[in-house]
């Protein structure tokens, strides 16, 4: 009973904070609202007995919101981030798509006869998850690892100040590359 009440309170907080992200009149407030929404969902996942994943969700999202705050200061300046703004387009279409998606998903959730629960969760869930990752589901983690490395490389390449065109010219034929910053490999 108590868990049910806590769940619904968190649900209201999560959805209301999610709505506040796009209703708030500044990006700073929107960031805080998104952080609240994520923390509420993280606690809901904790209520579903997944302590490890719930904690990861909360920690990861709090850090991400901190990074977003840094981005706002970098690209918008702190004052614009705190000032009222409305930068939207196609609101009616977006609302229609959003309501349609909710009706479809919620209708399916309520109308589908879900099967009965199969099996019982292990006593030590986090321990069991660790064994699973290091055992039968090793392939999943072996794929996620290279994807993360590729993401880091792609992120650095995209965000780097200079590109290969800056070094090798528009046709990439300039040799040796004109590197504005010395100290690279072979220099």
């Amino acid at each position, binding site marked *: 009973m108590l868990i*049910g009440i806590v*769940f619904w309170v968190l*649900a209201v907080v*999560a*959805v209301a904070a*999610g*709505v506040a*992200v*796009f209703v708030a009149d500044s*990006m700073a407030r*929107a960031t805080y609202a*998104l952080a609240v*929404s*994520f923390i509420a*969902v993280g606690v*809901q*996942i904790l209520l*579903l*007995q*997944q302590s*490890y*994943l719930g904690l*990861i969700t909360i920690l990861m999202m709090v850090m*991400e919101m901190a990074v*977003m705050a840094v981005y706002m200061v970098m*690209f*918008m300046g702190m004052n614009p981030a705190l000032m009222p703004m409305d*930068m*939207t*387009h196609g609101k009616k*279409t*977006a609302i229609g798509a*959003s*309501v349609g*998606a*909710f009706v479809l*998903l*919620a209708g399916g*959730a*309520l109308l589908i006869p*879900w099967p009965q*629960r*199969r099996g019982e969760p292990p006593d030590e*869930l986090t321990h*069991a*998850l660790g*064994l*699973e*990752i290091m055992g*039968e*589901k090793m392939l*999943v*983690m072996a794929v*996620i690892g290279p*994807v993360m490395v590729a*993401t880091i490389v*792609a*992120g650095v390449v*995209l*965000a780097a100040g200079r590109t290969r065109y800056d070094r090798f010219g528009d046709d990439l034929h300039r040799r040796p590359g004109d590197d504005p910053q010395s100290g690279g490999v072979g220099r």
Partner: protein
Amino acid sequence: MTLEAVLVVAAALFAVGLYGALSQQVVVMVMMGLELMINGVLLAAAGFWWFLAPDPSGQVLLLVVLAAMTVEMAMGFAVATLLHRRRQTDMTDMSQELSQ
């Protein structure tokens, strides 16, 4: 707390995120919409796992969703940085033609 309740909340989060992803002009705000959508998927996956088949292997799916969220965040920030450097903008409407 039932599976239906969890899924309805997840659907609401997904729908709110969809609205944001479609309506916002600032790249970072679009990312926030996508994050909310993945947040809903994460909650739904957690609900499915707990109420239908609480086997340890199902939790690996949630880890994959979390990894997808991380990749989306990192790529989004990198693209936002690139846009700002090249165009001095963070608006999607001003960066429609990627070839320029």
